[in-house]
């Protein structure tokens, strides 16, 4: 094999997957009916619509504070209950401390929950509880289990099992082993994941508001439906501010925890 052959081979290695990918993209675009013309006219229309939004209706700003606060409270409550529930499921799902039958049961529930989008859950819950913040909060609480349950369970499976053995060796029961052996070891991760999930819950609570679960999302959606575009723009600005502030705050706190964990 000479050098030229080698270069050709090298390119072929890159080209094959790329062309397959390209083919898939083109086929998918065909199926969805995406066309260059449609995109062009859509962008122009969208640009014109942005003009309708300006200027924001500042008079509506104070009215937005309440719903924004409601969104935060929904996310906060959902994260709190969600973390608690997820811990319970995670303890049942961890191979090193749970029973085999309980483990598969809990793992299965977590996996099923993870495959259900929050928006589906909230639609079911709205049918049950009616419109308002309660179904949104419950949906987000359940939504935590799929993600946090799995992350916590994996964290528990990684802990130092010999420590658990040592605590069992003094005659401690399961509850005591969990409180003294398991929880201290996973706590930094629990807090870090919980705050990450809180960020997600804030964004989701806005989204769920749009399907009737209260909060700033509900304001945004109803303003759009009533064609009050200036008001909708105000709601949009408040939403952006809210998400930005929360992410910054939670990111800062998570970083602090990480640094502390690294030092210890």
């Amino acid at each position, binding site marked *: 094999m000479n050098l030229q052959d080698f270069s050709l081979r090298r390119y072929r290695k890159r080209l094959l997957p790329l062309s397959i990918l390209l083919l898939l993209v083109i086929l998918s675009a065909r199926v969805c009916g995406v066309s260059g013309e449609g995109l062009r006219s859509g962008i122009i229309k969208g640009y014109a619509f942005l003009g309708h939004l300006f200027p924001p209706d500042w008079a509506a700003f104070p009215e937005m504070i309440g719903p924004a606060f409601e969104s935060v409270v929904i996310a906060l409550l959902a994260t709190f209950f969600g973390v608690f529930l997820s811990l319970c499921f995670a303890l049942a799902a961890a191979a090193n401390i749970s029973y085999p039958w309980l483990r598969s049961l809990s793992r299965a529930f977590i996996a099923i929950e993870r495959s259900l989008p929050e928006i589906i859950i909230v639609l079911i819950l709205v049918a049950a509880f009616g419109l308002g913040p309660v179904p949104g909060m419950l949906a987000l609480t359940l939504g935590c289990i799929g993600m946090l349950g799995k992350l916590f369970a994996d964290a528990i499976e990684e802990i130092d099992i*010999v*420590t658990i053995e040592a605590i069992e060796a003094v005659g401690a029961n399961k509850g005591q082993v969990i*409180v003294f052996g398991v929880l*201290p070891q996973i706590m930094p991760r629990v807090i*870090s994941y919980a705050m990450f999930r809180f960020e997600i819950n804030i964004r989701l609570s806005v989204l769920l508001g749009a399907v009737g679960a209260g909060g700033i999302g509900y304001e945004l959606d109803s303003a759009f439906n009533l064609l009050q575009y200036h008001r909708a723009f105000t709601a949009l600005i408040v939403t952006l501010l809210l998400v930005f502030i929360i992410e910054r705050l939670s990111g800062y706190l998570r970083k602090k925890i*990480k640094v502390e*964990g690294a030092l210890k």
Partner: protein
Amino acid sequence: MLEVKNLTKTLPGGRKLLDGISFKVEKGEFVGILGPSGAGKTLTLRCLNGLLRPDGGSVLLNDGSNGVQDICKAGKRELRKMRRRIGVIFQGYHLVKRLSALENVMIGRLGEINTLRSILYGFTDKEAEEAFQALQNVKISHLAGSRIAGMSGGEMQRVAIARAIFQRPSLLLADEPISNLDPSNAKIIMKMIRPLAEQMPVIGVFHQPEMTAKYCTRVIAIKDGRIIYDGDPRLSNELLIEIYGEELRQIEQAPLALRVDEHHELHTTDAMIHKIRDHEPTGL
């Protein structure tokens, strides 16, 4: 008093790990178990506190107040009860890294404390004082409030001893307690374990014949799952060669103890991996 009768453990393939281990230990004795890796020392020790169930034989514990009980036949609840009376010190310390030294000592008495109270960390002032006393006994009370992570091996092993003392056991087991420590820390730890034998039988697994000769009152040597020696802790060179094999004879220049030390270097790697893992950053 502890009486071990005819312990056997066989692998599914038919290999005998324990082949009729029997011995008796009284209060006041500090027994060192010696033997090459894989001889069944640690296995024997794990049978003594019920972490491992042998195929046959019995481990009879008699501490006066509770009468004679067989740990090999105890049910789950009974086993938990019996374990309260058995303190264990491990090679890898096995402390909870994110809790303080004092909290780790308190773990020693979890078995006696009402579940709800312990889950809320509701230790009484008296218990806290006793735990602090236990740390004072091993001369490490100045670190009572510090987390375990960041302590040296010697410090961690002292906290582990304090945990065992605070547990008020009627039998103390030690699984290679000094194998991870430097020679001077190893001596300090042996000096701390030795007087505990006055209150309860102490049984330890060791890889250091020079240490057991100095601090133990009696040595049991195990090879291929059988006891091949039981008696005076000062072993003759011939006996050491019989225990550890001809390798010991081959390098004449180095002192005996040094070569036995090389032998167990393998064991310490496990503990080191744990340490590395604990220092990895966590979180997303």
